[in-house]
C-alpha cells in the first residue's frame, strides 16, 4: 500500500486519481425505493474502501450524482475490486474544478499534459473531442458552448492536438454538476445490476464445472447475496476437487462482503442410490437428493431461493421432463439464469469473470464410474414416486447435513473454518 501522503509520485500500482464518479445502474427505475438501494450500494462501497483503501474518504452527493473523494490516490487493486460491486454500472476517474470555465481549463490542461506526453511518442497527432453534459441547468453556459470553448483553448495550448468528432483518440467528458465540474477520460465498467443483498439471500449449488459459477455471477448482478453448497462425493472422488471449488468460491466472493461455502458429504447417499436405483435413473436421483439437501440447508441458513447452473438440454438431466420432476422436490424457487444460454455463451462469460481457467482443471466432481451410459431423459413418474417412498434416505440426508463442513471466505479470499456454520440461523 502506498503510504506516502505528501508526494505526487505514483508507483505502478497507484493511479493519479483521487476522485471517482459513480454511475449507478437502474437507479431511475427504483422510485420510492431509491434510498434503500442507494444505501445498500454505498454501504458496500464503504466497506470495500475500508478494506482496500484505508484512508479517510468522503462520498459526496452532487445533483443526483455520487462522487467518492480521498486525499490519497486510488490503487489499481481498489479499482479492480470496485468493478466487481453489483449495482455499479461503471465509474469514472475524475478531476474536479470550480464552477467556472477558466478553472476548468487549467484543470484540464494540467490533466492532459502528462497524458499527451505519453501519447505523443507515436509522433502522430492526437485527436480529441470534448463532450459536455450539464446536469445542473443553472450553469451560465450551455453544453455545446462549453465544449467549443474548451476545445478551442485546448487546441491553442497543445499544438499536437487535433479535433475529430467521429473517432477521437482522446474523449474528454465534462459533467457540470451543481457544486463542481467534473471531467474525465477514463471510465471503468462495473458489474451493473442492483446492489448486493438488495434482493435477499440464496443458496447456490456449485459444482467444479463451467456453468454454476456463471449462474452465480448473473444472480449477483440481480442483488442476491449467496452462500454456496458443494456436494462432495468422497470416496468416489478425491479431496483435490475441493481445492478447485474453493478457488472458484474465492473468485466469486469478490462480489459480496462475506461468503460461506458448505461442503456436504454426498458419497454415502450416492452409494445408496446406486445400490437401489435403476442405473438410468442414477443421475436424476443424485440431482433430486442434492436439491432436497440444498433445501434443508437453505432453510437452516435463512436463504429463500436456490440457484443452479442448469441450461435447457445441455446434458441428459436437463430435459424439461427431468427439470420438472426435480422441481417437485423442493418448494423453494430454483433460479436458473442460464436456462436460455448456449454453451459458447456460458464459456465466454466464464472467461470474463475469471472462472474458466479454474473450471477447466481436470478434477471431476462426479465420478465417471457411477454415471450410467444411458441416463433417462423422459423419466417414468411412477418409478420416481415409488423410489422416494420405498427407499428411505432420510437418515442419510440428516447425517449428511449434520456432518456438513462450513468455510467462510472473506473479500480478500482468506478462508477460515466455520464450525456450526450449518446450524439454525433463523
Amino acid at each position, binding site marked *: 500500500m502506498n503510504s506516502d501522503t505528501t508526494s505526487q509520485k505514483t508507483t505502478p500500482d497507484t493511479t493519479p486519481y483521487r476522485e471517482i464518479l459513480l454511475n449507478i445502474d437502474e437507479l431511475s427505475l427504483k422510485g420510492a425505493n431509491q434510498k434503500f438501494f442507494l444505501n445498500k450500494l454505498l454501504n458496500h462501497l464503504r466497506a470495500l474502501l475500508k478494506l482496500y483503501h484505508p484512508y479517510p474518504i468522503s462520498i459526496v452527493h452532487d445533483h443526483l450524482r455520487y462522487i467518492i473523494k480521498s486525499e490519497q490516490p486510488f490503487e489499481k487493486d481498489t479499482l479492480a475490486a470496485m468493478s466487481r460491486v453489483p449495482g455499479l454500472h461503471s465509474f469514472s476517474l475524475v478531476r474536479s474544478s470550480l464552477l467556472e470555465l477558466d478553472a476548468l481549463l487549467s484543470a484540464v490542461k494540467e490533466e492532459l499534459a502528462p497524458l499527451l506526453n505519453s501519447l505523443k511518442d507515436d509522433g502522430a497527432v492526437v485527436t480529441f473531442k470534448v463532450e459536455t453534459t450539464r446536469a445542473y441547468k443553472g450553469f451560465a453556459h450551455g453544453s455545446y458552448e462549453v465544449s467549443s470553448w474548451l476545445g478551442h483553448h485546448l487546441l491553442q495550448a497543445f499544438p499536437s492536438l487535433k479535433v475529430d468528432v467521429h473517432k477521437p483518440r482522446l474523449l474528454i467528458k465534462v459533467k457540470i454538476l451543481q457544486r463542481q465540474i467534473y471531467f474525465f477520460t477514463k471510465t471503468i465498467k462495473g458489474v451493473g445490476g442492483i446492489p448486493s443483498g438488495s434482493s435477499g439471500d440464496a443458496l447456490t449449488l456449485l459444482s467444479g464445472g463451467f456453468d454454476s459459477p456463471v449462474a452465480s455471477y448473473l444472480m449477483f448482478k440481480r442483488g442476491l447475496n449467496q452462500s454456496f453448497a458443494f456436494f462432495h462425493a468422497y*470416496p*468416489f472422488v*478425491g479431496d483435490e476437487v475441493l481445492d478447485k471449488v474453493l478457488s472458484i468460491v474465492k473468485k466469486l466472493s469478490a462480489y459480496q462482503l462475506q461468503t460461506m461455502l458448505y461442503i456436504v458429504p454426498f458419497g454415502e447417499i450416492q452409494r445408496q442410490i446406486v445400490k437401489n436405483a435403476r442405473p438410468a435413473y442414477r443421475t436424476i436421483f443424485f440431482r433430486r437428493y442434492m436439491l432436497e439437501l440444498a433445501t434443508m440447508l437453505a432453510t437452516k441458513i435463512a436463504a429463500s431461493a436456490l440457484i443452479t447452473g442448469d441450461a435447457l438440454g445441455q446434458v441428459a438431466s436437463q430435459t424439461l421432463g427431468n427439470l420438472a420432476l426435480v422441481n417437485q422436490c423442493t418448494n423453494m424457487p430454483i433460479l436458473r439464469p442460464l436456462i436460455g444460454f448456449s454453451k459458447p455463451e456460458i464459456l465466454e462469460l466464464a472467461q470474463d469473470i475469471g472462472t474458466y481457467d479454474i473450471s477447466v482443471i*481436470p*478434477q*471431476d466432481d462426479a*465420478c465417471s*464410474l457411477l454415471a450410467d451410459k444411458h441416463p433417462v431423459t423422459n423419466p417414468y413418474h411412477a418409478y420416481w414416486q415409488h423410489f422416494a417412498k420405498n427407499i428411505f434416505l432420510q437418515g442419510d440426508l440428516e447425517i449428511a447435513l449434520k456432518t456438513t463442513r462450513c468455510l467462510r471466505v472473506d473479500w480478500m479470499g482468506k478462508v477460515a473454518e466455520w464450525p456450526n456454520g450449518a446450524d439454525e440461523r433463523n
Partner: protein
Amino acid sequence: MIYFDHAASTPLHPLALKQYCESLATDFANPSSAHRLGRSLNKRVEEVRHLFLETVAAREVDYDFIFTASATEANNTIVRWIVGGSEGKNDGRIYYSCGDHPSITESIARWGGSNNGRCVEGGGKLDDLLDDLLDGLRAVFLIQVNNSSGVISDVEKIASKIKNFCPDIYVHVDAAQSFCKIPLSLRKAEIDSVTISAQKCGGPKGVAGLYLKKKRVSTFSPLLVGGGQEHALRASTVNAPAIFAWGAAVSALGSVSELEQNYRYVTRLNDLLRAQLSAKVPVVQFPFYSCSPYILLIIAPKVASDILVRHLEEREIYVASSAACSSRVKGENKTFSAMGIANSLHKHVLRLSFSPSNTEAEILEFVKNFADIYHQLLEFT
C-alpha cells in the same frame, strides 16, 4: 490400521526411535567442531560408517561410504558426475531403464545432454539385453529391486559381466528398496557405487547413503562443496542424530541371519496374499513374479485404483497407487509402460508393500475388505 505402503516409507525401528530421541536431546553438537563434543560425535559417526561397510561386506580399502540427506541426492550426485561429465569410458552410451526411480530417470534426462551419447531405454530384465549393448557403453544404472514392480535384478552378476567385458564401464546400483532386505555384497568390488535410503529400512527421513569405490574418488565431482565434510565428498553438517538412529536400525536388521529370517517371513505374507486374493477376486492380475516379497504390484481391472485407495482408506487400510482419476487426464505412466503394462491398465495399478511388522491377520483382513469393496464397486459399473 493396516499399513501396506512400506516401500514409500516405513516406521522407525523401535531401537532407532529410542536412539533418535536420545540423540536429539544430547547429540546436538556439530561433528566437525574442534572441541571434544564435536570430536566424540565424529568418532561415533565413523563407527556407524564402519557398520554400513560391514553390512555389505565392503572392504575399507575398496570403498568409501558417505552420508547424504536422501537417496535422491545420492542418485543425483552420481548421475551429475557420470552423465554430466566425462567419467567412465568416454563418448559411450548410458544404460538405464525407464522403469527406474525418477531420481535416476529424471536426472539423466536433465543432465544427459547430447554430448554424452544416446541414453538407451529399456524395459524388462536387464540381463537379457546387455549382450547387445555392452559395446560402446559408458555407464550402467541398475536398480536391485524396482520400487514399483518389486522385480529383482541380480546386480552382482551383471556387474561381473560388465567388468569382465570392460572394467572402465561405470556401474551404479540403486539399492534403496533392497538394503537390509535382499543380500548385497560388495566384496568383489565390481560395483562402483550404491545408493541406500534410511527411511526404507527403519531409519529416519533426512539421511541416506552412498557407497563409492575409492578408485573413483580421484575423479569424483561432489554435488555439494563447502566445509569439506564426508572426506570432502559431500559438504554439509553431518546429521549425527539421524545417523545414529539409522545405525541402530541397521545393527538390528542388517545381519545376514536377520535378513534371511525377515525375508522368509515376508515371503510367507506375500504368498498368502497372492493366494487369498486370487481366490477371492480372481480378476486381479499379478504381472510380476520372482520379485522381492516386500513389494507386490497388482492390477485391478474395471475399477480405477484411486477410488479403491479412497475406499480402503475409509477403513484405515493404506496402499499405494499412482493414477489420478479424472475422465480428462490421459494417465499414461512412463514407468508402467517401461514395465510392459498396457496403457489401458495404467489407472488400475496398486502397489502393496510390506515389512516384518505386518501380520497374517492383516493380510487376511486386507483381502476381505478389498474383495468387499471391489465387488461392490464392480456392481456399480
